[in-house]
């Protein structure tokens, strides 16, 4: 008896042959990552659960078309990101318009140029920077990101995918991923600076 853990490709081959157990195994392997991505994109448990179910229903529906020369996790992230974006578009928006967002992003230029010194809050104690109220501000700031910036930020910085894989998941060029990531980060930095220092930028 072999006791080795099956690869994704082996599980997928079994799923294509109709194995419900292989499908359970594959879900167990990836469900936490999909849930985390969905929760970060949508911001609540109910919507995250819907996206989780939609993602795996889509996987079941389209697994026959999956070709194993590409990575399953990249393909799954693509299905999950699309499910999350579809859900997001049906919801009332907290996100900023592109114009408001970019104004906020580039306010950092004036701030850096200004005569007055910026406040450096970066060495604040972790218990202050990550307390419940600060965590809420961080969540709200992510919810304000326009979706095309939010999905890049969540995949790259929160889920920790390499830029090249984020590009693959979202069908973007790597420079486009980096540019969206940078703007998202600057926006979040400005919002956290507002909160931690009370400064206006």
């Amino acid at each position: 008896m072999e006791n080795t853990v099956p690869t994704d490709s082996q599980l997928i081959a079994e799923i294509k042959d109709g194995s419900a157990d292989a499908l359970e195994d594959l879900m167990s392997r990836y469900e936490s990552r999909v849930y985390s991505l969905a929760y970060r994109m949508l911001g609540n448990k109910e919507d995250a659960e819907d996206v989780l179910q939609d993602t795996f229903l889509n996987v079941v529906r389209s697994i026959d078309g999956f070709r194993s020369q590409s990575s399953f996790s990249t393909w799954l992230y693509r299905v999950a990101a699309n499910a999350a974006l579809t859900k997001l578009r049906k919801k009332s928006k907290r996100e900023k318009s592109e114009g408001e967002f970019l104004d906020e992003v580039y306010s950092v230029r004036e701030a850096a140029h200004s005569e007055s010194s910026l406040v450096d809050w970066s060495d604040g104690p972790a218990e202050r920077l990550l307390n419940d109220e600060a965590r809420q501000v961080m969540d709200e700031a992510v919810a304000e990101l326009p979706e095309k910036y939010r999905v890049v930020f969540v995949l790259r910085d929160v889920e920790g995918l390499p830029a090249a894989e984020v590009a693959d998941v979202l069908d973007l060029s790597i420079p486009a991923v980096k540019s969206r990531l940078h703007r998202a980060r600057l926006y979040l930095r400005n919002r956290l600076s507002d909160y931690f220092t009370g400064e206006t930028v």
Partner: protein
Amino acid sequence: MDCKEILEGLSEYIDEELAEKTCLEIESHLKDCYNCRVVVSTLRRTVTLYREVPAPEIPGDVRTRLHAVIRLKGETG
């Protein structure tokens, strides 16, 4: 490099994705520009703070319902 150019490249700088020459140019600017230094340190901390937040755990009832829904789908085609 002025502040505006520096600010454009800061994510690649903190991710250590820039060529050495560009890094040196940025560092030379940072040495003399307090505000850009603050933007670098707070940008870096912003990224690490988001990474330090624990991933939301998938609740047990959510997992149970997911597996039930998918199994049902498998049985009904």
